[in-house]
């Protein structure tokens, strides 16, 4: 294990779990349920074509594209700060505020993503007719499932060391795919407009 001392995972804390059980089972299960529930909701309810969003943009797509872009930029902060905390950036000692930066950039990225996902699910629903939209719909459900799994895993002390990096990496990869299939597509199709 090459975990740095900032990781809480190595602290010996037997906890209520028996050593043989898999402590990541419950977070993964709940995350999976969340992903499935979002997908089913997006598929089954009738899209309203309308949802409340942030004012000040030319339309819902522009609003979502910019919010998603902000969230994606913060996700890059997430990736870099996580790599720093785990000592994976050569020659860089994690400053003491790295953990706080990681937590707050993550919270902000998540909160910024919620209005976007809300508009997607509530107003448009999950759609599978175009490859881009299909990928976006599936990744969107997957992202929130992984995110829930990671949030539920964080407080647990007896997880294998790879749990958080794997969950965080999956979340980052999913968000990258979401950004490419939405904001990047919007900016290249309609131009970089607000």
């Amino acid at each position: 294990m090459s975990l740095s001392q900032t990781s809480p995972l190595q602290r010996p804390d037997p906890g209520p779990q028996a050593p043989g059980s898999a402590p990541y089972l419950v977070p993964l299960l709940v995350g999976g349920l969340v992903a499935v529930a979002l997908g089913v909701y997006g598929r089954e309810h009738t899209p309203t074509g309308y949802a409340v969003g942030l004012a000040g943009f030319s339309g819902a797509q522009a609003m979502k594209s910019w919010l998603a872009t902000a969230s994606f930029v913060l996700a890059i902060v997430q990736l870099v700060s996580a790599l720093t905390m785990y000592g994976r950036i050569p020659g860089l000692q994690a400053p003491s505020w790295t953990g706080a930066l990681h937590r707050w950039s993550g919270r902000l990225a998540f909160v910024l993503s919620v209005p976007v996902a809300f508009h997607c699910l509530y107003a448009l629903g999950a759609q599978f007719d175009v490859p881009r939209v299909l990928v976006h719909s599936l990744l969107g459900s997957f992202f929130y499932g992984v995110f829930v799994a990671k949030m539920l895993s964080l407080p647990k002390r007896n997880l294998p060391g790879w749990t958080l990096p794997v969950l965080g990496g999956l979340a980052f990869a999913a968000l990258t795919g979401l950004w490419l299939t939405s904001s990047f597509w919007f900016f290249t199709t309609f131009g970089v407009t607000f």
Partner: protein
Amino acid sequence: MKRPWPLYTLGAGVVLALGLGVASAQTAPRTDAVSAAGKAPAASSTAKSTPSATPDPAVQVQADGSASPAPTIEAEEADPAPKRADYAGVAQGNGGLVALSIRNGKAVAYFCDGRVESWLKGTADGSTLTLTGKDALITVALGDGKAQGRLQVGKGKWRFTAPLVHKPSGLYRASAVVRGARVVGGWIVLPNGRQVGLLDVGGSSAPAPRLTPGSPMTFEGTELRPQEPDAFLPGL
């Protein structure tokens, strides 16, 4: 202790999503319920009627008619037509797009699959409309946030379902005179970015330039300005 913080993060997301849901349900331009909501859908003036608003706007629409969750044609026929609504969707089995726009009792529909197009007109005096065009007919039922119906253009017949859409999605029309020929362009843009369009140049079809909502385009050196229904519908 930072143990519960991730749960607070999740909770904040859930609360935010629920808030957006309630706000959307209350401010949605459910123009089907125009008698109750008035003409300013953006103002959340209808809040007091349903303080514990259900996030399902379909239930709200039903609330002023029957309480039945399954809308029946009879119940919808009693509803007035929306004063202002735009629908766009796909013609099943054809892949062409259908758009319907309603402004103050007047309705215009447009069908286009990139080769064949048809403009149809009619009055919007109830929640079921009949629109006619040259060798074309549309019957459509409005409600539940969408327009559903049948479309007949020439020999082709299709069903379609068109959800409510908002700018920059929806219907666009441009007309101009290019070297003495009357040019009419029609475009439909779906929320997923898909679009279709066709130009009618003096009676024959020509491929339409790709539409960027809000921007003019040039056709054979003449500028075309595709307009939204607000601009072109009263003049049709």
